[in-house]
């Protein structure tokens, strides 16, 4: 927040601008664009270009093997009647609405513990951050598959106490929960951000509260949470956007099938199957744009709702 106020004070410069300064500005701009060029080329060629292409493809029937044919709104109309797509939306919403709050809660709790001035903090921070570095990776998803298999580590431990566990990821009633758990486990990056946020809360508030005889819980509710709300908001927005797009875990854990019985069929996974497996790239493109609209809507709701609970201390 302090960085933003610095930026705004920069733009609010006083006094008239001289010719010399204008010329210098233009030169600076030119140089900036030249240095930005590699990034700009990448943005245009690798992001904007394909996005526009997929917008076009969303209105076509495109099998990958033959040139696309214009079909207007057909793909979007088909989405209304696609039961598997509706199921995939359900799976994705469950994942986001359960996984994100859980993950943020865990991240906050760990951050609070670490913030207590533990000895060897950098070490613990790294240890807790490690899953996030690995979490999206193929190796960890594969490991997850082993741990939660019918004869995996979890069931072996359960067997010691006489419980016959289900096949956590191969049983449709528990498979999505296993993937949500994997998501929660990768709480590292919101944790780091929370930790940074906690350190920004001035100590004087706590000192004042102490003098007034506030309990630890009261201090948390009355000081920590409100002061941290911009950070929570930031994490919430980022995690929701990221979670809607998550793909790797479900793809690896289900072996690319979204199974068993479509119980881990994320929207993105279904999109991938349609586009690359079933020669229906037009439909897949339409789905991608639909997902963009969903994410946009969620982010907008988030920003509107933030007015009522996010507290800016400036």
């Amino acid at each position, binding site marked *: 927040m302090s960085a933003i106020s610095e930026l705004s004070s920069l733009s609010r410069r006083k006094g008239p601008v001289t010719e010399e300064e204008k010329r210098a500005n233009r030169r600076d701009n030119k140089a900036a664009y030249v240095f930005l060029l590699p990034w700009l080329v990448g943005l245009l060629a690798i992001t904007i270009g394909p996005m526009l292409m997929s917008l076009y493809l969303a209105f076509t029937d495109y099998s990958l093997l033959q040139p696309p044919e214009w079909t207007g709104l057909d793909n979007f109309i088909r989405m209304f009647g696609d039961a598997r797509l509706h199921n995939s939306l359900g799976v994705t919403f469950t994942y986001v609405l359960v996984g994100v709050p859980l993950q943020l809660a865990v991240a906050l709790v760990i951050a609070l513990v670490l913030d207590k001035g533990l000895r060897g903090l950098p070490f613990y921070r790294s240890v807790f951050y490690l899953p996030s570095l690995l979490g999206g990776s193929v190796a960890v998803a594969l490991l997850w598959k082993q741990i939660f298999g019918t004869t995996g580590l979890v069931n072996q431990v359960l067997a010691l106490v006489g419980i016959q566990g289900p*096949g956590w990821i191969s*049983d449709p009633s528990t498979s999505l929960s296993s993937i949500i758990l994997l998501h929660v486990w990768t709480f590292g990056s919101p944790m780091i951000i929370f930790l940074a946020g906690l350190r920004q809360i001035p100590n004087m508030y706590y000192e004042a509260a102490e003098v007034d005889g506030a309990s630890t819980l009261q201090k948390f509710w009355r000081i920590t949470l409100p002061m941290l709300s911009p950070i929570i908001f930031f994490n919430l927005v980022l995690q929701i956007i990221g979670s809607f797009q998550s793909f790797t875990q479900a793809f690896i854990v289900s072996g690319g099938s979204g199974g068993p019985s479509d119980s881990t069929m994320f929207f993105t996974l279904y999109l991938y199957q349609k586009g690359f*497996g079933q020669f229906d790239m037009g439909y897949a493109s339409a789905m991608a744009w639909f997902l963009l609209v969903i994410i946009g809507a969620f982010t907008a709701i988030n920003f509107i709702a933030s007015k009522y609970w996010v507290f800016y201390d400036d």
Partner: protein
Amino acid sequence: MPLFSRQASANPGGSARTKSSAAKRRLRASGALAAAAAVVLALGACGSGGSAPKSSDGKVELRFSWWGGDKRAQLTQAAIAAFEAENPNIKIKPEYGDWSGYWDKLATQVAANDAPDIIQMDEKYITEYSTRGALLDLSKHDIDTSKLDEAALNAGKGEKGLTGIAAGINAATILANPAVFQAAGVPLPDDKTWTWEDFERISAELTAKSPKGTYGSAAYGTDEASLGVWLRQNGKSLYTDDGKLGFEPSDIAEWWTFLKELSEKKAVPSASEVVEAEAAPLDQSGLATGKNGLAFWWSNQLPALEKASGGELQILRFPSKTGKSADTQLWYKASQFWSASSRTKHPEETAKFINFLANNVKAGEALLADRGVYPNSEVRTAIESKLTPADVKVVKFIDQIKDELGEAPAPPPKGAGAIQEIIKRYTSEVLFNRLSTEEAGKKAVDEMKSAIS
């Protein structure tokens, strides 16, 4: 040393903006030049990613892609080496991987106009690719088809001509692991007379007499081959000649009802284990690891499975309803096809290589029976002495069932690539009791119809 010290950096003093000196300007200009040059270089590097028609030493380079495991890779590399020795001007670049990723990759490559020159093709996808113009009509090129088995040759023909040369002949089989039978003290079945009831009884007995976690048989229901056999034994078929579905919801429901019966009697693994087994590669399959006594496989997969299991396996016919082997209704399947991209820059060299694979004894000596029994009768005879004991079993089995075969099935229509996934999905719905067999049958058939329409 905390990284985030409380209140440490409240105001680092703001970023002062200094006026640029002449020296800095010069530096900037040269920096810009360097940046621009870097972009040009990077773009240039991207551009050369496409298929280079000739490598630097004047050789023609062809790309050849297939799916399969390590054993197939070794054998195929040997065949490539034999071809390159005879044709020093052609270089073959192999690209291979697992079945599951193969088709995603191929579709993308074709879309990007970057398809491999020689493509290992499956009957499930050949109509999709050939009717959409992605495959070369090989009859227009110099490939000798006179020695090839007629049924196998016809399997590669479609409305766009001859777009695939059969790489081998296959049959749907049940493979048995005798070690599992022995350990349980259960005799191997007589596959000439066994019925589905026998299959159920033997599998259940095997499970009962084996250690926990070992099952009499792997479950069917994860592929269309076992469904195909079942339907044929009931006078139906997967597909009709005009490219429609050849069965009703009640037919597939009956197939699932029997599977549920097998599951209830513990003749096959639990639902969760069935789902897990689907994802396992061949060498970690239940049959290879000794967890299943019986399993459903194609005949050509026996050598690789034997290698993985480290013991002997036995090929069995499918059970029938009547107990007569003539009613098993098996058929010869073209295991895979050699196809060529219609946009290859070197159709002549590509055809030459496919001709070599199909007709040259040296190719046969390298590939043996990994892709099924050789469709070329001359090659088949010439390589007999080189075959491994496992290969010999496969060849013998294919010979044995010759007079029992049913009619050749109709080729899978466009969109058939999606059928297996639909079968799998509803099999797990049924095994987990989420849908009744009738409901699953109705839904599955609806989905299949729309997939191939």
